């Protein structure tokens, strides 16, 4: 077994920063002694003088444009679970780690992803695309991988001997131990794990309790370390708060892309696709703006979704700034195989993307197909259908390429130098009340155009223009 540990050292800050590409000063606050204080701040805020531990008022004096949010443990937990769900595309066995990290068992995935280096590179790129800063470490045991990642050691250790050497560098404070044990170790002067490894086991057990020895055993694989697998729910409902309210389309798309990447990972882990998703734009007050994007075929392609969303947002005018965005995708569909490559597809059966783009901007009713209908009445010999749904018609004498939506009465009869060809008598439709009785002619003008005209065979025997031979 081989384990990949992903540690997210600045997760609370990343949750705030990932929503924007702009360089803004950002800080995460916590309430300590009833005064909001800065818990974490990003590089831009730091350059302006903000430091962790500073009170909010002091920070605002140094940096008036500071954007901040309160520390939200629920959001952190949810983000960790979403990351674990997303990581399911790389491994069938993902576990949550105790503190802001996840563990993946990757030995079975190495062949599929082309080797350890390739897999780690893809995971690293993916996590960056999600907007998180991460440290990746590989070790034969889960606790070791987690510890190395948390210690900032982005190493890939495949054998136990290397492991003790790499672990030796780490400070003892990194271990998740009780305060008493930690203080005890400090008082004895043990600062690094290498020193701890060199101590006799029974001595350690007597002095600091069996918990420490058990930890060390799990670290180097002398004891099994079972990790429960994390199974995400088959639905997606996530919210991302923008650091600064915005109406800019590109800013919204940037933030939405983070969530769409997470959704893509979750779907890939379950070999599923979605038939559509809902985007909710929350404003400071009143009703949120809701957009639903439907896809013609279930699929899993965040670039395509982002494309459709861009088209849809171009048609939408936002009058209020957006403070948070939510993506909801509830109904997942199992996909039979991997989706095809967009650029190789040219046939209609796979080519629904054009339809989706046109419908996203113009509405479904603007993009249609036609089908002939076996009916003698010309205005009923065709009907609107969805694109690609045409059926067979029936043979008939020559028909004009343009049919007028309603026959146009011809008040003055056609000039005498027009020639009439025909007649074609059409009498039909007595069974549904729209019966017609007409004589159709092709009227040929001296200049050569041909019109399709008819004379009613009842009533006032009026003449109408019904079509044009284009």
């Amino acid at each position: 077994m081989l384990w990949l540990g992903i540690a997210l050292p600045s997760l609370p800050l990343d949750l705030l920063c990932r929503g924007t590409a702009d360089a803004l000063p950002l800080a995460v606050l916590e309430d300590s002694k009833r005064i909001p204080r800065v818990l974490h701040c990003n590089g831009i805020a730091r350059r302006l003088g903000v430091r962790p531990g500073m009170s909010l008022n002091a920070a605002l004096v140094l940096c008036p444009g500071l954007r901040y949010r309160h520390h939200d443990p629920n959001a952190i937990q949810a983000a960790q679970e979403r990351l674990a769900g997303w990581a399911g595309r790389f491994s069938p066995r993902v576990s949550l780690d105790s503190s802001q990290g996840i563990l993946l068992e990757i030995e079975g995935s190495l062949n599929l992803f082309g080797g350890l280096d390739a897999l780690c590179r893809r995971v690293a790129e993916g996590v960056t695309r999600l907007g998180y800063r991460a440290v990746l470490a590989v070790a034969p045991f889960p606790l070791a991988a987690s510890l190395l990642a948390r210690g900032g050691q982005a190493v890939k250790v495949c054998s136990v001997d290397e492991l003790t050497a790499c672990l030796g560098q780490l400070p003892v404070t990194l271990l998740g131990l009780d305060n008493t044990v930690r203080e005890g170790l400090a008082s004895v002067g043990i600062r690094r794990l290498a020193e701890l490894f060199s101590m006799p086991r029974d001595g350690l057990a007597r002095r600091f309790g069996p918990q420490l020895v058990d930890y060390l055993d799990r670290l180097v694989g002398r004891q099994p370390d079972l990790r429960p697998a994390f199974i995400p729910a088959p639905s997606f409902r996530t919210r991302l708060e923008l650091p600064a309210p915005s109406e800019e389309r590109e800013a919204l798309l940037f933030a939405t892309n983070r969530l769409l990447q997470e959704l893509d990972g979750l779907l890939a882990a379950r070999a599923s696709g979605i038939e559509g998703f809902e985007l909710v734009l929350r404003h400071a007050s009143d009703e949120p703006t809701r957009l639903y994007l439907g896809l013609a075929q279930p699929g899993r392609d965040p670039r395509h979704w982002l494309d459709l969303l861009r088209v849809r947002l171009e048609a939408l005018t936002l009058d209020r700034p957006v403070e948070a965005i939510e993506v909801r995708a509830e109904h997942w569909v199992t996909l039979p195989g991997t989706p095809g490559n967009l650029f190789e597809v040219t046939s209609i059966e796979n080519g629904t993307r054009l339809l989706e783009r046109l419908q996203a901007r113009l509405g479904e009713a603007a993009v249609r197909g036609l089908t002939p209908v076996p009916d003698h009445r010309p205005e009923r010999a065709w009907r609107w259908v969805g694109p690609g749904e045409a059926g067979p018609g029936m043979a008939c004498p020559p028909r004009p390429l343009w049919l007028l939506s309603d026959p146009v009465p011809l008040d003055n009869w056609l000039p005498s130098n027009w020639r009439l060809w025909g007649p074609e008598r059409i009498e039909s439709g007595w069974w549904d009340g729209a019966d017609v009785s007409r004589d159709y002619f092709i009227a040929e003008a001296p200049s050569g155009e041909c019109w399709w005209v008819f004379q009613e065979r009842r009533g006032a025997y009026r003449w109408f223009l019904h079509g044009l031979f284009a």
Partner: protein
Amino acid sequence: MDTRIAQLLEHPSFQQGIQGRDTSLPTQSSGFPELDTWLPGGGWPRGRLTEILIDREAIGELSLLMPALAALSRERRWIAWITPPHIPYAPALAAWGVDLTTLLLVTKRGMDRLWAAEQALASGMCGAVLSWPEAADFRRLRRLQLAAERGGACGFLFRPQSAAAEASPATLRLTVARQERELIVEILKGCRGNALNRALRLRPDHAVAGYSAA
């Protein structure tokens, strides 16, 4: 070549006559052998724009395209109609041999016609795109031409004859007029040098073939 001359030749008002047959351009046969001999590559250019300029509608400009559209529809790619002036009549299209399952009609009051045409042309999923733009300047038509090159469709633009005087980036431009039973086709741009501005007379299948006089 002197850079100033090169820059001058880039100006849209200049056309460069095509010397000899340009066989590098993929084409779709028009179905009219006499027209095919005049068109470089032997047919309607694929992946390029063709402008058809007419002085009034319904003189047979569509029947000029029908054989090619029927052949293109059999390639199982969309034949897109962007805001046609009337609704194409399905039985007539079927009679011409067009596979109606490939028909895509995009029309809505007040929509951006050039945007839709550009999407269809660039998608790579259309065999032909027919559009009736209202007012189009050189810059927007150039975008359509580039979209056609990306997607490989035969782009057909129907415009009034007054547009003949304007510069256009379309690869092929021709005017179509009717004289009794004949279609008079004049190629303004895109054919071989000696065919320029000569009138070609075509006799497409006439509607009244097979009828008796009333």
